[in-house]
């Protein structure tokens, strides 16, 4: 079981963490809500919990809680630009269908 970051995403995360001045890594997670079942969580990490799984990707600690990992296994987080908008994108092989905007999904 693992989740990864693309090189571009990792570089952005390192940059954001630097500017933030604190934090040990990036948390990826899911929670139940939204218009189609599950929703992604993307947060800075100040404290790693005992139960968390920690992965290393291009120098960034990626933290996932065990419940979320089931839904995220094999996910690659990318950073892309669409027109003026730029941000992170989950490439999650577990997703069966998602709502129109892709912010929530079902497995």
């Amino acid at each position, binding site marked *: 079981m693992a989740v990864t970051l693309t090189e571009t995403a990792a570089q952005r995360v390192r940059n*954001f963490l630097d*500017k933030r001045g604190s934090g040990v890594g990036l948390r990826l997670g899911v929670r139940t809500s939204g218009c189609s079942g599950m929703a992604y969580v*993307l947060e800075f990490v100040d*404290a790693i919990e005992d139960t968390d799984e920690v992965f290393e990707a291009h120098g960034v600690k990626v933290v996932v809680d065990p419940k979320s990992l089931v839904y995220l296994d094999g996910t690659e987080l990318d950073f*892309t630009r669409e027109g003026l*908008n730029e941000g*992170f994108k989950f490439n999650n092989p577990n997703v069966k269908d998602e709502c129109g*905007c892709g*912010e929530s999904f079902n497995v």
Partner: protein
Amino acid sequence: MALLQISEPGQATAPHQHRLAAGIDLGTTNSLVASVRSGVAATLPDADGSHLLPSVVRYLENGTHLVGAEARAQAAQDPLNTIVSVKRFMGRGVADVKHLGGSLPYEFVAGGSGMPRIRTRAGERSPVQISADILSALKTRAEQTLGGELTGVVITVPAYFDDAQRQATKDAGTLAGLNVMRLLNEPTAAAVAYGLDRAAEGVIAVYDLGGGTFDISVLRLNRGVFEVMATAGDTALGGDDMDHLVADWIMQQAGVAEPGHALRRRLLQSACAAKEALTDAATVAISLELDDGSHWRGELSRERFDALVEPLIRKTLAPCRRVLRDAGIDPADVSEVVMVGGSTRVPKVRSLVGEFFQRPPLVDIDPDRVVAIGAAIQADILAGNKPEDEMLLLDVIPLSLGIETMGGLSEKIIARNTTIPVARAQEFTTFKDGQTAMALHVVQGERELVEDCRSLARFELRDIPPLTAGAARIRVTFQVDADGLLSVSAEEQTSGARAQIEVKPSYGLTDSEIETMLRASMENAQDDMQARRLREQKVEAARVLEALQAALQQDGEAFLDAGERQAIERAAEQLGRASEGEDHRAIRAAIEHLEAASRVYVERRMNANIQQAMTGHAVDDFK
């Protein structure tokens, strides 16, 4: 799929619930929009990569309009329909505008509510509408960049903007379809951008030298709250004047006496380019095409440039001295100096300002963008993207707000220096039996007597159910929103009768008036305390006498013999006389004397009441 940003721990939002917030620096010459994404505040560029949006709107023949660089480029060919520097007209009356717009070609007409309008081919446009067009362009840019609708924005305004100018700015935001969460003073925004609000306290000077204007503000930070201590400036001093000085120097060197319009423009362009290059370089080569087609080539050194502009920079130090004097502090009391405005990139500006304030100024954040960045940080917090404990408190109530109570006393509901937004409630009651209406008088100030405070508003609460004095419960709520707008409501708790009023407490009060009011309250503290005690005792005396008269009328005959009644009436007379005097102790003593004299009477009444209430009930009913 939608693109996501990194949230603070525990602050990730549900899908479609993103709290997208932006900060807007609505400037005289240029405007910017900034936002916090993945924890980093930055200004947002347009598709061409430029961050600054020239604050220029041109109304076209086909009914549409242009905003920004394109509109500015066409200003010369269509001056009447291309509006520049509209910020100067915000919240101004027709008379002010005629005076301010002297050099501008616009045709002003008086609008309905005394608001001036500019006649364009798109019809008569008010400054609010024109500003809304600029804000709309920034809104579109932000929404395209952030990938969703904005939850709310913070718009910055100069610290010296009065209520009318602030209201006009807020109206422009609303007209542009923005939820204006707060207006923020520009110097405060700059200080926030540098994170200076995280310090416990300090005095911060914000030196803002733009293209055409200069502002200096001194802020005091106290427990995370910024207060503007003083502001000063020069509305006709800026980087453009440096360009003119350099252009004059080039003319001298090149032997040009009277340049034509086109050459003058080329001169200014070369001068501006040279000025910008000298920020990093020690010398700059200048090449200028003269009217006869020949080229003049020369070199300008940093030293030479510094000497040219030094007198101009020194001119900004006079307002600096003034602002320190107004704030009553020395340069050494200033803990940080923040640089704002493109012209503060000039190294000589930095060194002279550093010398004056005896410390190196803060220059790390792009001085053109620092205000928008601070506004974005504030907007992010107000939109709810940060944990509660990082909440910023930025504005305070300058003078206490209260209500008039019996005896002409001011009962303070919200104390001065309370941070806003705030809501406070207090319960009041009726003074007379069967009282069905109550007059509420909202006052502002630190003094104890209403006559020494400033009257803000009066309103009446009617339809109070007729009850014994003191039985009605009237809840008076004071609410001040983030923009300083006060609303006062009164509600009788048993019947639900309600009345309310809205006021602008800061309206028309200058800083010096506020200071005078504060000083008066301190100087008169002792007198005020005495006056309050006296009034309180007088009110108490009146209340006791009122209640006694009512009781005697009702059952005095039944419970008292002639001697007892006489004793009570004598004590009441004494109290009546004492309460006309000026000695609160004498009144207090007379009240106590009367209470002692009528103790037997009160006991008999109470027993009778209890007996009456118990008649017909078994003792068990009361267990």
